[in-house]
């Protein structure tokens, strides 16, 4: 079963990389694009046929390693 995971910085955490990307877009004339926040995208496969069990495993992998919940949020979908 395949999943995709999005890990993003919490809104109160400064994202200087997103800001730098936003500035660079401004430099190439795309200055109406604002509030860029950079994050991480994972795809993963779970060897499990039960969707609920698989979701629990993905959630656990996010909580234990893929995201640092002090600074990041995560969400995931089956794909």
């Amino acid at each position: 079963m395949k999943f995709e995971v999005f890990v993003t910085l919490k809104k109160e955490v400064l994202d200087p990389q997103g800001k730098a990307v936003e500035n660079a877009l401004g430099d190439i004339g795309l200055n109406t694009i604002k509030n860029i926040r950079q994050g991480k995208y994972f795809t993963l496969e779970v060897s499990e046929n039960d969707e609920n069990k698989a979701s629990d495993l993905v959630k656990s992998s996010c909580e234990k390693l893929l995201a640092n919940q002090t600074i990041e949020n995560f969400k995931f979908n089956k794909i």
Partner: protein
Amino acid sequence: MKANVIVFPGSNCDRDVKVALEKFQIQTTMVWHQENEMPKSDVVVLPGGFSYGDYLRCGSMASKSNIMNEVIKHADKGGYLIGICNGFQILTETGLLPGALLRNKKLKFICKYVNLLIENNSTPFTSKYKKNEKIKIPIAHNEGNYFADEKTLNELQNNEQIVLKYCDENLNINEESNPNGSCLNIAGIINKNKNVIGMMPHPERCVENILGGTDGSGIFQSLLN
């Protein structure tokens, strides 16, 4: 006194720490991260470097290493634990210290001497310094921007857990004297039990005049007290 220095793939300050510890007659053993046990010691050091190439997040993979179970047990029993630079990042990833270390505000790797204020000298790691003393120790990091939410920062202040702050020559603590954007100019913090310290500056690089200074010596000398 005995110390263990944990070596991860990508650690690069491990041998410098050993040299510094041994300069102060602290008998040091290097312990590979895949080990399931380590010799009994008074202090464990998580050294600087780029464990696991800083993949995913700095310190995240190292925090899940085999040996970290033993390191956490050591700290839970009250043993001294020091995380320097990448070691500090590993400590926040394990949850032994609160907060997280983000990319430097100006997105640059910074390698230079900085002025630090000793905010708390009543810890086992800073007792050789005077309170509000200014020391000069090098930093070398890309992710040293200490972040914690408002509640955690308040707790750190109320419990006197902030040990080192970035300052200027005249002890001013402000945006100009903050090299990386850290909340409250934080350069080093300690846990509530006062036996686990994390710091971005590298005291081990600052224990010989020939290397530019000896202000880092106090950290190692304090341990001996």
